[in-house]
């Protein structure tokens, strides 16, 4: 868009943008500022001059619509073609589908939460620069939620486990991990939300979420997922820039902000890292054609890239996040510990698990020479033997959950992978349990918040996870089947081992129909 004034004077980008955004705002006088923007002060962040905010993109709405519409047109054309062409039959192996089930139930509903969260943050900030940037991101996040739902809609037509993602997110045991992460961010103040999601998640950790799923899709013949991933890429680039801008802005405004932000960075790096356990497991176990190991991804995307970032932020007095030593030690372990958990609890999950093939076990041995053969391979070998004899192991006892991250207490002591890590805190006469020093400290900083956690295992035991009208006192009451009903997991179709599943049979049959004349 070229802009001239009536006298023919051409405006520069900066002036133009100033008029298009900053110039629109005014200081209210009929209503007090603190009543118009009531949520901006209570976190203790001091902002002296909102105009110091540097708008990273200077995007006006007309350009936004133009670029985004072009992307939407292309994306939906590919989605339609992929569906019409039965593109789902081109994926490497039907086990792959479980990786995208994890995405649709664990991630897509969070994109929606991000949409509402950024709307709230945009409404909360008095500065026009951050307001516009947050609201544009809010609109983008709605795009991501919807394009994911639309892209994966075709998978839902043919395979199990895709049928009710938002409902499951609010109920299914392991989905409380990503869900509580986002609930935590949205219930925090607007500045913490921006550090949590805008900076820690979108900037520091996003490569560990998006790259594995989207590259995983590309490696495994899933053009549907790959396409929405690539289409979201330029949005994500904008979001990452916003995340970095917000942190620099807050830090530059007042030295008193530094310790607050540091605590948030510590908290949200740890919280995000815990959620990424699911991604690590997906990378190491669920992709038939692997991109790289979780350990390698962590080294490239966090240790190298993140290291440079925190070096850059040190001039503001920010140090790297806490507990990095433990994370670094754990990178040899967590994906294996997580897969073992899902394998055991495969009866109450909405996706399938399985015994890795011999080739896959060898791959894991080569990627994890210091841990896999010693600690994890023997167990997988044993489970596979048992399964082959008809004794596929399902754990029927509910695990204890960490009060903060809500992951079952399956992680091990820093430095000792043979010992489960337990921490506990007494608060108001109650005992609270934690999987790690990180989760314990996060609780101790905000006990009033984290004592509220809706822990799925505890809720089941309290009788809160049965369908309305269930009478648990009747003879022969089967709690597991009632919990599955409450989750809307279709027993025998969504859950249990991949081997023998409807997905496995249908995929083989349909691929046969598509590739032969049988």
């Amino acid at each position: 868009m070229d802009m001239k004034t009536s006298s023919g004077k051409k405006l520069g980008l900066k002036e133009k943008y100033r008029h298009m955004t900053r110039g629109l705002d005014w200081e209210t006088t009929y209503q007090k500022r603190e009543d118009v923007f009531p949520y901006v002060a209570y976190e203790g962040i001091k902002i002296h001059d909102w105009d110091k905010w540097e708008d990273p993109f200077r995007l006006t709405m007309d350009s936004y619509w133009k670029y985004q519409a072009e992307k939407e047109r292309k994306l939906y054309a590919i989605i339609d073609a992929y569906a019409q062409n039965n593109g789902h039959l081109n994926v490497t192996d039907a086990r792959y589908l479980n990786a995208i089930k994890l995405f649709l139930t664990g991630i897509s509903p969070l994109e929606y939460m991000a949409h509402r969260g950024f709307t709230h943050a945009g409404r909360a900030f008095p500065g026009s620069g951050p307001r516009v940037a947050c609201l544009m991101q809010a609109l983008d996040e709605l795009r991501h939620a919807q394009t994911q739902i639309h892209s994966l809609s075709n998978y839902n037509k043919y395979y199990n486990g895709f049928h009710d993602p938002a409902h499951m997110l609010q109920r299914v045991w392991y989905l409380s991990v990503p869900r509580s992460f986002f609930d935590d961010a949205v219930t925090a103040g607007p500045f913490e939300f921006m550090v949590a999601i805008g900076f820690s998640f979108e900037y520091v950790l996003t490569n560990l979420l998006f790259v594995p799923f989207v590259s995983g899709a590309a490696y495994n013949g899933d053009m549907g997922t790959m396409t929405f991933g690539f289409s979201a890429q330029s949005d994500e680039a904008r979001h990452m820039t916003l995340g970095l801008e917000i942190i620099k802005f807050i830090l530059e405004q007042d030295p008193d902000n530094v310790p607050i932000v540091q605590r948030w960075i510590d908290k949200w790096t740890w919280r995000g890292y815990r959620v990424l356990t699911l991604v690590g497991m997906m990378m190491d176990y669920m992709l038939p054609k692997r991109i790289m190991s979780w350990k390698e991804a962590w080294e490239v995307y966090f240790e190298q890239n993140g290291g440079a970032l925190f070096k850059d932020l040190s001039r503001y007095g920010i140090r790297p996040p806490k507990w990095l030593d433990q994370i670094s030690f754990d990178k040899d372990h967590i994906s294996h510990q997580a897969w073992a958990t899902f394998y055991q609890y495969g009866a109450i999950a909405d996706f399938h698990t399985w015994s890795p093939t011999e080739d896959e076990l060898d791959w894991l041995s080569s990627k994890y020479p210091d841990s896999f053969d010693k600690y994890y391979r023997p167990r997988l070998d044993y489970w596979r033997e048992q399964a082959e004899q008809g004794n596929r192991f399902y754990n029927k006892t509910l695990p204890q959950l960490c009060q903060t991250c809500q992951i079952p207490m399956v992680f091990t002591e820093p430095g000792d992978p043979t010992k489960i890590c337990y921490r506990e805190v007494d608060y108001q006469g109650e005992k609270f349990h934690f999987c790690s020093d990180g989760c314990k400290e996060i609780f101790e900083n905000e006990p009033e918040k984290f004592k509220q956690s809706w822990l799925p295992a505890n809720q089941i035991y309290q009788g809160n996870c049965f369908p309305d009208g269930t009478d648990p006192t009747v003879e022969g009451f089967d709690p597991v089947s009632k919990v599955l009903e409450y989750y809307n997991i279709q027993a025998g179709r969504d859950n249990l081992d991949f081997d023998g599943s409807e997905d496995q049979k249908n995929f083989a049959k349909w691929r046969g129909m598509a590739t032969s004349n049988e």
Partner: protein
Amino acid sequence: MQMDLRTVSIQPLRQTYDPVARRFGDKPASRYQEGTYDIQSTANFHYRPTWDPDHEIFDTARTRIVMSDWYAFKDPRQFYYGAYTLARAKQQDAAEANLGFVENHGLVANLDAGLRDRAIALLLPLRHVAWGANLNGASVCAYGYGTAFTQPFIFQAMDHLAIAQYLTRIGLLLGAEETLDKAKESWLADDAWQGLRRYVEDTFVLKDPFELFIAQDVALDGLLYPLVFDTIVNGVFAAEGGTPIALTTQFMTDWFKETRRWADATVKTAATESPENRALIEKWVGHWRDRAAAALQPVAQIAVGDKADALIAEQVEQFNARLAKAGVKV
């Protein structure tokens, strides 16, 4: 002649996601349906907002409107992100062409100076009204309940930002950078604008998202857009040789015609739900309509002088007739 192209045909296990199938049956669903129904969380929230501990993250108690199902609302445009963006991109093309036409043919230079001054005085402070509406759209989207209800408000918020930006461009086309500064001074200090500014600032502190929808999208937009863009710009100004100005504001005219359908449907759904909802909506509409009409009177005067009273009365009459069709008597 028909070509009979074939693809391998496989019988699907299901046609759509469960929430959509529960509502409409298991049949092929639209993208609006799949992208809208039941995607907001409603159960088992983990923590109360630290910024509003009296409520859950999403809470029906933030408004006094009571719905047995917040997905009773339906956007007649069926806007989800993709449909919305494509529609606006098309309008953006048209707006760009119009602005370019006016600029390239030097049409502003031929305008009568008096008319041009009145157009500047009327249109430019409205940048700030639209900027306020952007904030209010964000409020309803953030604090409302259920995607069917909240989703259109992020679109409203961004549309209002776009309108503020189009008005800025129109201002620069009609005047210069100082023209924008002067208009902002008027907005802040001139008597003619203080009623409207007070109205806008008062809506900033409304806590009930549905009342805010009534105050902003129904009452204020419902009087301001037809008055300023249809009646004054397209009617009065055009008759005085101001057709080039009307070309530059065509986006606003089209936009209001489209969004009014959604606003009416939303009012109607809530009012039809219960007599209590209807009574509340009638009270809100009456209150905010009267305030908006009073605030717009001196604004209309800028453009049409002593004909303002008659114009406003006409607008109010049309507004009442429109709301009556949506089931609300005021």
